[in-house]
C-alpha cells in the first residue's frame, strides 16, 4: 500500500527549478520563438540586450513584490514609490552636487535606499498595525507618494543636474564584460532574493505566513513582523530599481512609474507566484518581467498590428502566456 499512500515526493524548490516550475520559462521560450519568426531582428544581440536591460526595473521591483505577495500581501504603491524615490534622490543629488561634486551620486544612492526602506516600513506598518487590507492601504500610500513628490517639485518634474549626468550614465548604460549593468544588478538582486526566500528562516516564514496565517501564528511566528519586513524588502527593491532608473530617463516626472504596479503584479503572477500567498518564485518573477518586456518589444517590431490594437494583442498574449504556464503544471 505504500505506493499509493505516500504522496509523490516533490523536489523542494530552491536553486534547482523543478519541472512544475518551468511554466514561465516555457512561455518565455515560446515567445522568443514567435518573435523570431515574426522578425528575425528580434534575436539580434542588440535588441535582446536592450529588452532585457529594460526589464530590469520591473524585474527588481517584482522580486520585492514576490516577497510581499508570497506573504499574503499586495503593494499597489510601487510605481508612485519609485517616482517618489527618484524625485527625492534627484533633489538630493542636485542639492549636494555643488558642494561635493560627483560624490553626490553615491550619497544620493544611499538616500534612495533609506527612502525606500522608510516607504516600505510605512506600508508595512499601515497594513499590519492598522490591520487594513493591503490593497487599500497601498492604494492610499500610492496617492500619498505621488502627491508628495508633485508637491516637493511644484508639479512633479525634476531633472538631474547636468554636471552629474555623464558621471551617472554608466549605471544604466555601462556594462561589465559586455553585460549591461542593470542586468547584473537584477541578477544580483534575484540571487540574494532567492537565497533569502528559499534558504533562510525569514524566507520560510514569509511563505508560511502567506500559506496559512493561523498556522504561522500558532507556530509562534510574529505574523506582523514577517509581513512588515516583506514590505520593507519591497521598498529596498524599489529603491534599487530607482537608482538604476535615474540615469536612463534623467528625471522624475508626474507620470514616472504610473501603472508599474500592474506590470509588477503581472510579472509576479506569470512567474508562478500565487496571488493568494504561500508560494513565491523569484526566478519565475524575473522570467515574467522579461516576458512582459518582450511582448511590448514585439509590438514595436512587428508591423501588422494596428497601433490601436496593440493593447488587445498584448492582453491576448498575456493570457496565452498564462495558459502555457498553467498547462505545464499538469
Amino acid at each position, binding site marked *: 500500500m505504500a505506493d499509493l499512500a505516500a504522496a509523490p515526493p516533490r523536489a523542494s524548490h530552491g536553486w534547482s527549478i523543478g519541472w512544475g516550475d518551468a511554466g514561465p520559462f516555457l512561455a518565455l521560450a515560446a515567445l522568443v520563438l514567435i518573435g523570431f519568426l515574426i522578425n528575425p531582428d528580434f534575436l539580434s544581440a542588440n535588441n535582446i540586450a536592450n529588452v532585457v536591460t529594460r526589464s530590469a526595473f520591473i524585474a527588481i521591483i517584482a522580486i520585492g513584490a514576490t516577497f510581499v505577495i508570497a506573504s499574503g500581501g499586495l503593494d499597489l504603491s510601487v510605481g508612485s514609490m519609485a517616482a517618489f524615490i527618484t524625485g527625492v534622490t534627484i533633489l538630493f543629488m542636485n542639492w549636494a552636487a555643488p558642494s561635493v561634486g560627483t560624490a553626490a551620486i553615491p550619497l544620493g544612492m544611499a538616500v534612495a535606499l533609506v527612502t525606500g526602506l522608510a516607504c516600505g516600513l510605512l506600508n508595512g506598518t499601515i497594513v499590519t498595525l492598522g490591520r487594513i487590507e493591503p490593497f487599500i492601504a497601498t492604494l492610499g500610500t500610492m496617492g500619498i507618494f505621488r502627491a508628495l513628490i508633485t508637491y516637493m517639485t511644484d508639479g512633479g518634474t525634476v531633472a538631474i543636474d547636468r554636471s552629474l549626468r555623464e558621471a551617472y550614465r554608466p549605471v544604466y548604460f555601462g556594462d561589465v564584460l559586455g553585460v549591461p549593468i542593470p542586468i547584473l544588478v537584477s541578477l544580483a538582486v534575484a540571487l540574494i532574493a532567492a537565497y533569502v526566500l528559499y534558504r533562510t528562516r525569514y524566507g520560510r516564514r514569509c511563505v508560511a505566513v502567506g500559506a496559512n496565517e493561523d498556522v504561522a501564528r500558532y507556530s509562534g511566528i510574529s505574523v506582523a513582523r514577517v509581513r512588515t519586513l516583506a514590505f520593507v524588502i519591497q521598498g529596498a527593491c524599489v529603491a534599487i530599481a530607482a537608482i538604476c532608473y535615474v540615469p536612463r530617463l534623467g528625471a522624475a516626472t508626474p507620470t*514616472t512609474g504610473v501603472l508599474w504596479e500592474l506590470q509588477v503584479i503581472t510579472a509576479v503572477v506569470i512567474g508562478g507566484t500565487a496571488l493568494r500567498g504561500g508560494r513565491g518564485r523569484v526566478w519565475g518573477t524575473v522570467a515574467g518581467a522579461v516576458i512582459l518586456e518582450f511582448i511590448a518589444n514585439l509590438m514595436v517590431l512587428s508591423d501588422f498590428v494596428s497601433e490601436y490594437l496593440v493593447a488587445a494583442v498584448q492582453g491576448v498574449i498575456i493570457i496565452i502566456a498564462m495558459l502555457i504556464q498553467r498547462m505545464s503544471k499538469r
Partner: protein
Amino acid sequence: AEKKTIAVSIPAADHGWTAGVVYHANAAAKEINKAFPGIEVIVKTSPSASAQVSAIEDLSATRKLDALVILPHTSEELTTPVKAIKDKGSFITVVDRGLNDPKIQDLYVAGDNIAVGYNTAKFLVEKMGGKGNLVVLRGIPTVIDDERIKGFQDGIAGTQLKILDIQYANWNSDEAFKLMQDYLAKYPQIDAVWANDDDMLLGVLEAIKQSGRKEIKFALGGNGMKEIIEKVKAGDAVTPVETPYPPSMIKTAIYLTAAHFAGHAPVRGSLKLDAPLITKENADEYYFPDSPF
C-alpha cells in the same frame, strides 16, 4: 536609391487631443507611403514615457532610422534617449512638447502655448472690463500646461480679474465635469471659466447647463476641437472665441520631414503655429468637419 525610413513616435490615444494626433499621424503615414515610394513612414504609439523610450530604442536597434518624428510624452525623460538616436545620425523632428535641449532637434513644430493662455486672458480682460471672478481648470502637470497657465496669468496681471480657484482636471472631460460642479457649489458668483483644453471645456459646459446658473458670462477652452469651433461659428454667447492648437501639427511635421528627403531641400528650423483668437469671422478657416478632433 535606398528607401528612407521615418519613424514616428507619439503617445497612445489617452485623451481627445492625442487621439487626434494618432489619427493624423496614421493618415500622414498612409498618404506619404503611397505618394513617395522612396520613403517609408512607420508610426508607433506608447502609453507612457518609459514605454516611449523603449519604443525608440527598439526601432533604432533593429533598423536604420533616417528620421525620427517625436511627440514626447514628457520633455525630461525623452531628452537623453532622443539624443542617443540623434547621435546615430538620424534627422530629429520634435512636435508639440519640446525637449530640454533644443540643440537636439533639427526641426520643431509646435503650437504656441503661452499665446493660448495669453490671448484667452486678453479677450476676457477686454470683454469683462478688467474685473470679475474666474475659475480655471488645468490639465496634466506638464510643461505645456504650465506654459498655458503662465500665459494666462500674465494676460490678467494687473487687472481686477481674480482667479478664485485652479485645479487639475487632467485634460479629461469627466473630471472637468465633476470639478466644475464642485466649483459651482463652492462659489456663488463665477463670472467666467477657462479650461485650458477643449476636452475639459465639454465637461464644464455640461455642468453649467445642468446647474442652470446664469451669471457665467464666458466659458472658454483652447485647442480648436471641432465641436467648439461649431459653437464659435454659431455665435454662441458663452463660448464666442477659441484658440487653435491642432493635433494635425503632427501631420505637418511628418510632411515637412518627408520633404527634407523627397524634396532634396533641407528643412531645418522651428515652426510655431500661431494661436490667434478664433472668432465667428475667421472660424471657417479652422473648421474641419471630417477630423476626429
